[in-house]
């Protein structure tokens, strides 16, 4: 098992995305570093559009993630409803 990770800029939009990630992946680890937030989890991490929209209280396009994204590790799979990071070991 290896960890997948994603890092986002620490700002008001990311705050809701991080909340959504925590809800969709209850055992994910959230690490705050200067100006950034790093989230990691064993093997798989999912960001669900519906959950982010619920947190933000507005419509959210999964591709908006690009604006606040810093880095990631893992195989990406993205469609209209979710963004998945995964290792296939």
């Amino acid at each position, binding site marked *: 098992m290896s960890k997948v990770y994603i890092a986002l800029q620490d700002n008001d939009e990311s705050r809701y995305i991080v909340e959504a990630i925590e809800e969709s992946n209850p055992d994910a680890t959230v690490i705050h570093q200067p100006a*950034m937030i790093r989230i990691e989890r064993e093997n798989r991490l999912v960001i669900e559009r519906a959950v982010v929209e619920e947190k933000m209280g507005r419509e959210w396009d999964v591709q908006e993630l690009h604006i606040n994204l810093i880095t990631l590790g893992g195989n990406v799979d993205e469609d209209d409803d979710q963004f998945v990071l995964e290792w296939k070991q």
Partner: protein
Amino acid sequence: MAAKKLNIKDKYRLLTRDLDWEFSYEDPKQAFPYEEFEGIKITDWSKWEDPFRLTMDSYWKYQAEKEKKLYAIFDAFSQNNGHLNVTDSRYVNAVKLFLTGVSPLEYQAYQGFAHVGRQFSGVGARVACQMQSLDELRHVQTQIHAMSHYNKFFDGFQEFSHMHDRVWYLSVPRSFFCDARSAGPFEFMIAIGFSFEYVLTNLLFVPFMSGAAHNGDMATVTFGFSAQSDEARHMTLGLEVIKFLLEQHEDNVPIVQKWIDKWFWRGTRLLTIVAMMMDYMLPNKVMSWKEAWEVYFEEAGGALFKDLARYGIRMPKYAETIEKEKEHISHQAWWTFYTHGHAAGFHTWIPSDEELDWLSAQYPDTFDKYYRPMWELAKEQEAKGERFYTSGLPQLCQTCQIPMLFTEMDNPNQNSMRDYLYQGERYHFCSDGCCDIFKEEPEKYVQSWLPVHQIFQGNCGGPGVGEVLSDYYRMNVGVDNMDIKGSPDEVRWNKWKGVA
């Protein structure tokens, strides 16, 4: 009835499939002349997939939004004299090194991706390379804009592009990209798209940029993270490239492995300079180089290679040496710059006592034993008014072009040197890794433009080192460089801050 909105998978499919065409009356081999000579076999380009499925309309939309955010912050930074908020005048030297050593690489990456994007016959790969090429151009532009503010207040920013093409230590990053760009298109993708982007740029753009934030440098952290938001896409492209090549044909596996071995070693050598920036040039520390290396290379890279094991790919060659180097290279590099501080384009200094203690705590196995005594000696010399500058020119490694500053990792008191005889000439190397890379392609590396050799051959002006530095490199000797103590940068800083 209104037309149904396309989902992103359909949009991406339409962009990367239906916009391509078949060559009916021209020979495709003439249209894509570089696609076969490296021995890579592609059986079906349509298997290429961009997991982000980014189409040009979305690309422009999100890039425009990123730019607007970025330039609003640049404006605020300069309107509010943001340079006064950095930790101290030493910090700015890390930014000088970034501008002279890294930003021009963004431009080379732009050129490189524009070139290979033209050379692939698969449209998915061409679109991805086109986007990355545009990204890289954006990066060099935003970096120059961000740092132009510092150029108004500090020395050493004025000739970054001229210096990049000439200065002895800047030939290290420059030759790295020249090497990749003069390779075939698939090797370029493994070199830059995979090895460099996937693992190595993280170490520059994530912990170092977080460090910039921690040192009050709003402009740098902002361009850094904005660039890195593109890098996340580049990393994904890098991973897709390698999976694609490995899935296309089993004959590709040994070729790709050889490139991985070469480019991970080349990349770790290149990152020596980032190691030094993190451990020595950031007055407020976020994490040590060693810790950053463990998180972004060992952990993230380890997970990556476990994922690739199913294709028969193993960890890069020399991984064991690389693991030991994290304890040493930042110290060996900063010592080299400190002792060559008259020939650098930025200021150097002895770490403060507090910083020496931090280094001792971060590197309990090596710092007190090997490196602290050197700094204690430097302090004694400085106190006596004998701040040391070497008068010699360093010998350079024929492959990575770094001065022979590294030691044997199992014996840090012994300099690491290798040599190899090729067609009657003896060539010198810093390591087994660099020597092996030369042996694979000697006809390429015998042509290396080694700055010290060029000085001795009289190709860089002269006759003395002083004229090379001032006339050929265009350094303001004694203003742009030497010790930070007593420098015009420090004098101005103290005046701004009201310190005597």
